[in-house]
């Protein structure tokens, strides 16, 4: 193709002199950037979505190198090729010349029966692979999934026909709902009230206002609440006993039968019986369950609802704080500030607020807000709970304030850009008609700039939703027992710690004991977070673009 003739040489030289190769190389930079952005999004999307897709369940019959037969039931989780040399020390026989061996990572579930819920199977060892229709996946509250065959169904201690399975599942759902509402709403509320009454008593004591009558009254209140608690507890025990009489007998892959109480069962699916449409329905169901359920099994299973809730609440609080400050600062910089050293300093401050590493905000938030301001608030307003802190400990309010400082420059820059694009003719017109500067701002400038302000706020929200490092210091926890918003007075508990999607990813992906089992959930959470943030950013960009178009029209 390429002869080393003189003409070719000249051609080459000419080509190099034209600079074209370098231009192409720099185009390569663009291509790599594009590939990496889109590839990254695609990677997260595919890995995240496959978590929800109901997998086929396989039954593998195999003989291992010692000649022992085995049956493995489970979903194929991963597959890889390993060099044949790695198997040299085992007795696995391979056709000569084969350099790599395929092996499958199978998720076998049944955590209470086997020590490992994942195992590697060498493809050459597998004798038969089938997809039995009768295999069920039982999603459970504890111990993860169970794979096996249903043997019999027991309702209230008596065996019933297997066709009544859906009915039983519904029954257990109703029971669980009742138990949940008893446990969380009613009993939770009573505990909270008892705690508050105790604190009230302590407060009176500290203020030296505790008279005997008052003490008696408070004690009476506590006693009444405790009595109420006992009733509810009895009711709860009754429900639990009743539900414990429904059982499912299943056969696991190694042939042993296991009885599972219905109270532990969330869902039973015949994955291999599902057609594409059913699978799609299950897929949607799984997604919605992921969004609205509480996490189970130390966050490695179940949903991420508390994390979504925590993220949203914290971000909303932050928005409330950052919006007025950001907008006012931007208005000052663009409308009021003169051309002097102070303005220059201010601009440097804005740039630096944007550039300071987020962890520094976390350190500042922890030291200043949590320990200094929070500690003082506790001394002043919550002496009755000391030494256990109320606001003197990381919580959702401090997180919101810390992130508000962090996102302040985002709002300022975006708002200022919007203000700069408003033609000065509009200001002059308003002023010429006799309006004061404040009136011009309020009636003319702000309404026109509002989309720019919105853009800034959306970008700030996107930034805050993805920020994790400072939150690790000022309020995020891996498992919050209570949401910061509930039915107990004062409803919004700003002192509580909260869960956060970003931290959830870090925690489940890196701190959980069974990282392999948790990984799909982490991908799913990452997908959720990326979707939110990308959507927010795209909205912001489109709002800004539309705004730019509008201003261009105003100018002409």
């Amino acid at each position, binding site marked *: 193709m390429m002869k080393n003739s003189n003409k070719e040489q000249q051609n080459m030289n000419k080509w190099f002199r034209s600079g*074209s190769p370098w231009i192409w190389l720099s*185009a390569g930079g663009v291509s790599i*950037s*594009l590939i990496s952005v889109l590839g990254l999004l695609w990677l997260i999307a595919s890995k995240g979505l496959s978590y929800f897709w109901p997998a086929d369940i396989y039954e593998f019959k195999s003989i291992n190198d010692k000649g022992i037969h085995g049956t493995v039931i489970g979903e194929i989780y991963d597959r890889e090729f390993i060099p044949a040399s790695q198997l040299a020390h085992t007795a696995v026989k391979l056709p000569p010349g084969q350099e790599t061996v395929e092996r499958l990572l199978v998720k076998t579930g049944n955590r209470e029966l086997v020590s490992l819920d994942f195992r590697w199977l060498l493809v050459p060892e597998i004798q038969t692979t089938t997809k039995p229709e009768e295999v069920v996946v039982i999603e459970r509250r504890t111990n993860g999934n169970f794979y096996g065959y249903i043997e019999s169904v027991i309702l209230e201690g008596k065996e019933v026909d297997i066709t009544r399975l859906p009915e039983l599942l519904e029954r257990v759902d109703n029971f669980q709902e009742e138990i949940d509402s008893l446990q969380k709403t009613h009993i939770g509320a009573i505990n909270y009230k008892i705690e508050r009454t105790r604190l009230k008593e302590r407060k009176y004591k500290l203020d030296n206002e505790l008279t005997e009558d008052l003490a008696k009254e408070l004690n009476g209140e506590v006693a009444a609440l405790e009595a109420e608690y006992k009733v509810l507890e009895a009711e709860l025990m009754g429900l639990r006993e009743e539900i414990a009489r429904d059982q499912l007998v299943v056969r696991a892959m190694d042939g042993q039968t296991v009885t599972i109480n219905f109270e532990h069962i969330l869902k039973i699916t015949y994955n291999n019986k599902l057609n594409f449409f059913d699978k799609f329905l299950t897929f949607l169901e799984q997604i919605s369950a992921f969004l609205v359920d509480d996490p189970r099994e130390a966050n490695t299973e179940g949903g991420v609802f508390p994390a979504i809730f925590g993220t949203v609440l914290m971000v909303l609080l932050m928005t409330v704080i950052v919006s007025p400050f950001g907008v006012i600062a931007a208005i*000052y910089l663009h409308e009021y500030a003169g051309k002097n050293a102070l303005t220059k300093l201010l601009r440097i*401050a804005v740039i630096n607020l944007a*550039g300071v590493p987020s962890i520094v905000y976390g350190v500042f938030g922890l*030291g200043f807000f949590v320990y200094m301001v929070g500690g003082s608030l506790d001394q002043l307003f919550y002496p009755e709970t000391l030494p256990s802190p109320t606001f003197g400990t990381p919580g959702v309010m401090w997180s919101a304030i810390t992130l508000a400082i962090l996102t302040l420059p985002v709002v300022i820059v975006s708002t200022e850009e919007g203000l700069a694009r408003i033609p000065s003719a509009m200001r002059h017109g308003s002023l010429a008609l006799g309006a004061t500067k404040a009136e011009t701002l309020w009636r003319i400038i702000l309404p026109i700039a509002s989309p720019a302000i919105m853009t800034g706020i959306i970008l700030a929200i996107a930034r805050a939703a993805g920020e994790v490092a400072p939150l690790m210091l000022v309020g995020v926890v891996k498992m919050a027992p209570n949401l910061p918003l509930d039915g107990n007075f004062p409803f919004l508990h700003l002192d509580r710690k909260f869960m956060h999607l970003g931290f959830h990813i870090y925690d489940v992906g890196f701190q959980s004991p069974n990282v392999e089992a948790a990984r799909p959930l982490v991908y799913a959470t990452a997908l959720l977070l990326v979707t939110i943030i990308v959507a927010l950013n795209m909205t912001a960009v489109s709002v800004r673009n539309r705004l730019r178009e509008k201003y261009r029209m105003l100018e002409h």
Partner: protein
Amino acid sequence: MALAFKSTGTRQLKNSLAKWLITLGGISVLFTLVLIFMYLLYVIKPVFDSATVEQTSQLSLTSSTKTLSVGVDELKEVAYQINELGDIRFYRLTDKNGHKIGSQLFSQQLVSNGGEIKHVVDSGINYKLIVDSNNNNIVIAPKFQSVYTADSREIIARIDYPLGEEPLELDENNASFSKIAFAMDSEKAVFVAKTNDGRLIKTTLLSEDSFDYDPAFDTIFQEIEFYSKKVDEILITPDLSLAFVQSGNTISVFELDDEDNVTLKTEIKPKTTITSMALLSGSSSILIGDNKGQISQWFEVAGEGGRDFQKIRSFNNSTGEVVAKIYTEQFRKSFYGVTATGVVDVFYTTSEAQLWNGKLVSSQPDAFAVSPRSDAIIVVNNNDLKIFSVHNEHPEVTWSALWNEVWYEGYAEPDYIWQSTSGTDDFEAKFSLVPISFGTIKAAFYAMLFAVPIALTAAIYTAYFMTPALRKKVKPTIELMEALPTVILGFLAGLWLAPLIESYLPAIFLMVIFLPLSTLIAAFAWYKLPKELKIKIPETLAPVILIPVILVSVYFAFALSPVLELHMFGGDVRQYITNELGINFDQRNALVVGIAMGFAVIPTIFTMAEDAIFSVPRHLTSGSLALGATQWQTLIKVVLLTASPGIFSALMMGLGRAVGETMIVLMATGNTPILDWSIFQGMRTLAANIAVEMPESEVGSSHYRILFLAAFVLFVFTFVVNTLAEFIRQRLRDKYSSL
């Protein structure tokens, strides 16, 4: 008229109110930045404060005989004194509950039959051995207990006898002692003594159960072979393993662990005139004072000839006088050197800091003690007892200890070490900011190495060669990367990229060759295309054409990787690197961090560099092109040159981002604080270190303040970088507008 006037007034009022409010809001941004700066400084400052020693109270003792030993309780409310006549007396140090300062709380006779005390020997601050002139030996433990009444706290003192109230038999021959040392814990008490009949003996009392409950014990008598008749001083380490016997200018070290045989371990010969010695907290180091005012620290170092005591560092007292006595703190590595004229010098060993010095009393004190919490010293001289409060919270931190090599106990040589916590109690925290600052620089360096070529080439192409239509799509797409949460990049780096790189390591290095090569081949292929096709696929579509080309070459790199691994690296690159090249290989290493953090930095650099290049005035490039320069020549000679300050500021911003990034480094490295440039090893950065350790550090401790210092270093670094970048950008903008 009046109404209108009033309304104008309100409007004006509102107007000026709005002005003030908005100005206030604007200034608050500056205020916030200053507040962060000041608060960080406020937390850090105490670390660098030097110690202070101030007298808080003084009282006259009621006994007129010489004081042999003193002590104080944890709360500094009650002090005691043991005098020559065998009295222990407790005095109040505060005016409380109707009692005056200096009033006697309680006293007890420790010696019977009218004897006098000859020696009082301390083991820690808890136990004291009393030897009297009748040759009776007894171990006492002065105890304090806080009793809370309705509205106040009372300290009650008592004397415990952990080894029983009967005199102890410490010598088989019942000889009297000229020197004696003693140390005990809850299971064992060890005495080493020089008897007046010339023997060096060791006596061990082994508890049957625990001395905490039951004083019963078995006694083992041993005699130690020792060459010299003269013994000046004996010390036993609190862990009961070693005895130091000073004879003239030689210190012999004996091992005490063996109940059958006491062996001479080594001899320390400091080549000076030894005037005093003491054991540093933690029982590893011995301090030796000499007649020239120098105190030297010695501990065991593993050398060529096994472990041996070496002189590690020395301290000179402020006057150059003889070091008469050395007193050490119970838990920290601080010590007090006292001269015969009553001058006290306070030092901290590992930070090599002289913390304080001054004359506390007019002559060498009769008795001297450091309070249990090391926040006070108590000095008795001529029947005057003085309490000095000591403010010395962070003696281990000095600027030089943070940034220089420090020789810690148990280490073979001085080193930079960050090790803030450990399981054991007598652990000394090691705060060197060098390894984590180094890690920060290393991470940023590899990230920039990866990001700069891609970001800059992409910026150049997008700003200068790309069609506006394409640019409108490409720019927001790349900028979308900036919005991706770093926690996601970190998670992918740690759980997806790191294992991938580990199993396809050759592919990464193949790509470095393949990607440019395939790009050039594609470019040349396009050049060779027939004209008609060239018009259909113009050169402006290069980035789009290159996407499949790059994907294919990436695929080839990965496909070739196992083959290359098999034939060149014996089937396992990781093993090859570890065994053949002798480089440690971590799965989460600098390469992973470089790539992951590179992705985070690319959009920052890209956006700003692209802006700088794009805003180069058109007439400059048009002029150049009109004069016959090619596109590329114009770019290199005109555009890049003009935009170079902007590109530089883009790089600075990128660097600032890379230095402060937390989550990616936290998740994609092993977070080990090591000093190693190797691309196959991890690192610990300042930011990740804060994220890891801050939640566990105790508020107000040295560790807490040093983490704030780390944050401050980050703050200042990014402040300088950002301000510089902004300044340059501003200059550039002015230049463009003037062109």
